[in-house]
């Protein structure tokens, strides 16, 4: 019951008729949840609230895009593979140290 009331209140706050400007509390509140939004971890009513806000606030829309791009770049950041010679040398060094103790 309490949850329903809370959800209704949040939807009212997300009324697209009220314009948001950067620095205003609504933008800041959404920005704090954007990773959870990107990762699909938020309840549907909060997602709806965020989508409504994004449609009404170009700054937040640009911001979320840049955060999504950041995550995508991190996911694709290349790593050089371990060379075969290093794989062999490391194993030898580990066993040598292990046996020495």
């Amino acid at each position: 019951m309490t949850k329903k009331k809370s959800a209704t209140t949040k939807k009212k706050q997300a009324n697209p008729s009220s314009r948001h400007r950067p620095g205003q509390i609504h933008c800041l509140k959404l920005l704090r949840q954007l990773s959870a939004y990107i990762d699909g971890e938020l309840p549907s009513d909060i997602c709806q609230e965020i989508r409504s806000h994004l449609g009404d606030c170009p700054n937040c829309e640009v911001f979320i895009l840049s955060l999504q791009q950041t995550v995508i770049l991190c996911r694709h950041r290349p790593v050089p593979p371990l060379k075969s010679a290093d794989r062999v040398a490391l194993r030898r060094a580990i066993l040598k140290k292990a046996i020495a103790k």
Partner: protein
Amino acid sequence: MASALKKLSPPLPSQEPDEFDTLYRDHVDLIYRYAHRLCGETESAKDLVQETFLNAYRGLKNFRGEARLSTWLYTIASRACLRMRRKRKGEPEYELSLDELVPTSEGEFRLQIPVDELTPEEALQNKELRQALDQAIDALPKKYRMVLVLRDMEGLQAKEVGTIMGLNERAVKSRLHRARLFVRRELSARGIIDENDHKSGGLRS
């Protein structure tokens, strides 16, 4: 798994493959990749791999299979990394404040990263963008870097990251969000470009 691991015989370099060798062979590439992502360069990554598997060798007889082997190794590597970096740099650990990472001006909100119309692979061929990404990740305090690497690069679930780092899921998500905001700010602050530059995938420093 526990009983199999208890049969571990003292390995010698010339021996037939045993449990340690199997562990090493199956996971060394995974741990090297993780180590490289944490350290940002090859020699430190190799040191971390060595330290991780040495500790794993010593702890293998006590491993009871309560976690996956990869989770266990990630945990050993993470702890070893914290010890190594502390020893080498004595770097102070600091917290990332959400208030400092959230933009307050319209200009900050609208900072962009020049990757539109490019695949991530194409975008990362841009040397400047690659360097900016590497530097941003390297500049993260290590406990934030670890969460970012484990979650966004190694692709682990928040729960598993929490197991590795001894955190609850909420703390993992909080650190992840701060780490992403930090990297986003570092990248976009270097990527303020006009529309023409944007289309060419250019990046201003």
